[in-house]
């Protein structure tokens, strides 16, 4: 299932770390687009990893000492974000992370306290394509939320 799926993308925590300075996190979440329409898309993945000798720990699988969680895309924004994810390198290994503007949109949508914290850092440290961001936010009805966020944390529109 995973081998044939080309769209595996690291989720907000680690993706944010790609764009800003290191922040403390403890797990690695992976978004993926299931290739089959099925209610239970996770069981085959966890079964496969178990067969390979990786141990499950609550909702995570320990892979090379890193707790990894697989999350199927759960709405249209996340699906599009995964489709437009960008390839990056970890040393010599190729991997994918959410594009910066999509990452911002996903975090604005989830808007947990840690998302807000990371968003503030992103707006302070990263170079953002504001035209693309605006386009994505308007498409998914997040633009007003973005304006409120900017007013609250940066005192500007």
């Amino acid at each position, binding site marked *: 299932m995973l081998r044939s799926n080309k769209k595996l993308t690291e989720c907000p925590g680690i993706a944010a*770390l*790609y*764009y*800003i*300075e*290191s*922040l*403390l*996190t*403890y797990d690695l979440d992976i978004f993926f687009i299931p290739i089959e329409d099925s209610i239970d898309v996770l069981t085959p993945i966890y079964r496969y990893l178990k067969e390979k000798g990786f141990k499950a720990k*609550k909702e995570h699988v320990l892979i*090379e*000492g*890193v*707790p990894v969680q697989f999350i199927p895309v759960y709405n249209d924004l996340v699906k599009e974000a995964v489709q437009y994810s960008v390839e*990056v*390198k*970890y*040393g010599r290994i190729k991997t994918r992370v959410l594009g910066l503007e999509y990452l911002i949109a996903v975090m604005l949508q989830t808007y947990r306290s840690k998302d807000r914290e990371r968003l503030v*850092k992103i707006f*302070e*440290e*990263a170079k953002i394509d504001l035209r693309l961001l605006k386009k994505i936010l308007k498409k998914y009805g997040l633009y007003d939320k973005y304006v409120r966020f900017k007013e609250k944390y940066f005192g500007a529109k």
Partner: protein
Amino acid sequence: MDFMINMLDLRKSTLVQNKVLENIIREKGQRRKDLSKLSFKEKIHILVQLQKMARGVTKQGKAKDRGVWLI
């Protein structure tokens, strides 16, 4: 008069302090920007160091879910 002089001194010293603070804040911001430009691998390395540092201050009961990555 003494009071006036003291007020002037105080104002000057506040201005100096503000300048110092301004510099500190600017330099901290610059450092964060510099750190954000590190390679992905270097950032993951820093993350693991942060996990090690946080191990000693983790709340009871949370420690089990908050291990240090073995990479």
